[in-house]
């Protein structure tokens, strides 16, 4: 059986395999930079982290970075993205250096 490879923009890219199963999830630790932009989610991006990621970073597969950057605010990556919620947005340069 071929070994599964996760893309570098996947949240599971760093998670190891244990036999045929994924090991305990190892999510990237997104740095909390002081100059990260604070964004109040509007109706356009409500429940649409994929759309926000696409517009900001050009890659909808990075939908998960907002939850990892804002663990106290966003527990559910999708349904906690409600309009009016203020979140920090990691910079593209940060993600570039983090994800390679």
């Amino acid at each position, binding site marked *: *059986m*071929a070994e*599964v*490879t*996760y*893309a*570098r*923009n*996947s949240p599971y890219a760093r998670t190891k395999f244990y036999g045929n199963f994924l090991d305990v999830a190892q999510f990237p630790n997104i740095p909390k930079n002081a100059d*990260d*932009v604070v*964004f109040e989610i*509007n109706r*356009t*991006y409500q429940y649409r982290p994929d*759309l926000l990621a*696409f*517009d*900001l*970073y*050009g*890659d*909808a*597969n990075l939908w998960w970075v907002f939850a990892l950057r804002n663990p106290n605010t966003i527990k559910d990556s999708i349904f906690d993205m409600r309009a009016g919620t203020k979140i920090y*947005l*990691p*910079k*593209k*340069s940060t*993600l*570039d250096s983090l*994800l*390679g």
Partner: protein
Amino acid sequence: MTGLENDFESGGVSRNILSSSGTSALANSLSPGNSSGARLAQAGLMAGATGLLKDIAGSVFNINFQNSDGSVIAPENDWRVRVSMSSQIANLFYDNPANTLMRPLNSQTGTSGVVFPYTPTVTLSHTARYGTQALTHSNYNSYFYEGSEIGAIQINGEFTVQNVREGQYLMAAIQFFRICTKMFFGRDEYAGSPPPLVFLDGYGDAYLPHIPCVVTQFSHTMQSEVDYVQIPIGVDIGSSGELPVGPPSPNDSYGGIVRLPTSSTITINLQPVYSRKNISENFTLENYARGLTIQGGNSTRGGFI
């Protein structure tokens, strides 16, 4: 397992965006026809999460000229073309705390007079005037020196209005030159005095050495094919330049809304004038040639061109 494998792989292979340059991504997202750019603009965001749009408002042109380390260059060390007033006269106008209309020109918080944000077209002329005498039975005229003069300095500069800060600056500049073509009149403290003298600086002391001038003509050309933007005048704006933060106090000058062209041209004619005392005490051709009359633009012997 193969299908699962393909699903995982497709996420990374189909859109390998992370390696694209931030600059091009920013340019693409801000292009008018780009739906991502439209959504981001509506949300006040910039591509790459590099900042908020309001953070760059007011910094489109660099009014307060900055060094490479970010420190602000003092107006007297700025090489750009500047038209200013003496400190006594400036206290009546742009240095007057109650004059919110001209505050962008303030000596402490502004540019200490009008700075042309884009390199203007400047024309200087030096003339030696000779009279002619056509002698009888002569093949050549005789010439007799009569005098020399410096012609009016013509300055033609462009102003743009891309945000509130630039709009307020343009309005202040227009007000400045309007003032310079009016005399003190009526119930003025200095009623009867002629229009204020201005000083022209730029490109270093050796070229425009704080030349004392009078404004003989001012025109502001507003073209029909450009957009006009609504600008609040006479109100303070936030440090990021995005929004008015409050109306002027009752004792301040006019506050209201104007519409200004996004691109317009200001043309002025400045006639250099030198007092007889200054000329007789300070000017010698030898010193002039050595540049001694242009040393220290603020000194009493300065300003000769």
